[in-house]
């Protein structure tokens, strides 16, 4: 993906891959902070189920899978499009569920996930990122 973005949409796919990697990194940071420094989060917030520790792990793992999906898209695998959509949707639901712990972080990651779903749905059929 060095240059030659002639076809419209291939740029969006590259953006989707970068955003997947980026949102995944944010989710991993989010998860690690929840596990190691819970005071960062809103005290006594309520969760859909379980507690901050559980949600920290869930989002840490979802973030790691998201980063893997980003590599899948860059490599041009045809399954990576649907895998990316699926993972981004799961990550967004994960953020939705513990939004009370730190609303702004969750909102940011959620928004990026929606952008990724947009890019992969609308431009995902163009045969991967152009070389």
């Amino acid at each position, binding site marked *: 993906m060095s240059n030659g973005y002639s076809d419209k*949409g291939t740029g969006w796919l590259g953006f989707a891959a970068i955003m997947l990697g980026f949102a995944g990194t944010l989710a991993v940071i989010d998860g690690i902070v929840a596990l190691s420094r819970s005071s960062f989060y809103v005290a006594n917030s*309520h*969760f*859909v*189920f379980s507690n901050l520790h559980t949600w920290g792990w869930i989002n840490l793992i979802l973030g790691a899978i998201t980063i893997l999906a980003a590599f899948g898209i860059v490599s041009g695998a*045809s399954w990576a499009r649907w895998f990316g*959509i699926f993972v981004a*949707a799961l990550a*967004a*639901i994960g953020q*939705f*569920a513990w*939004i*009370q712990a730190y*609303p702004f972080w*969750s*909102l940011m990651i*959620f928004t990026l996930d*929606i952008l990724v*779903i*947009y890019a992969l*749905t*609308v*431009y*995902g*059929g*163009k*045969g991967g990122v152009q070389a």
Partner: protein
Amino acid sequence: MSNGYSEKGTGWIGFASIMLAFAGTLAVIDGIVGLSKSSFYVAGAHFVFSDLRTWAWITLILGAVSILAAFAIVAGAEWARWFGIIVAALNAIGQLGWIQGYPFWSLIIFTLDILIIYALVVYGGKKGVAA
């Protein structure tokens, strides 16, 4: 819809159906949490009418109908476009009605509903998702 997104707009229809199913899932989660874990919501919140329980049921049912509408759009049904627009609008109004219960969740689902209405209004006439 594996590839060949030649015509502009078919991707947006795919995005609309995924977002309908996604916003529907969020609304179902929202409703279930409203019924099973009311402490998640703002204590002493006021609603347009009735109480948290009623609104949770309304949201749960609207979410389920949204998911059905998503399948109808993927199936390419002619009526699905308008059905999707009406369901998304109802869902958005529903979220408006109980926004005080949990503002961030309502705002997120509301925003997704507006995106869905945009996609279906602007690109809905293109005969469904491209094969």
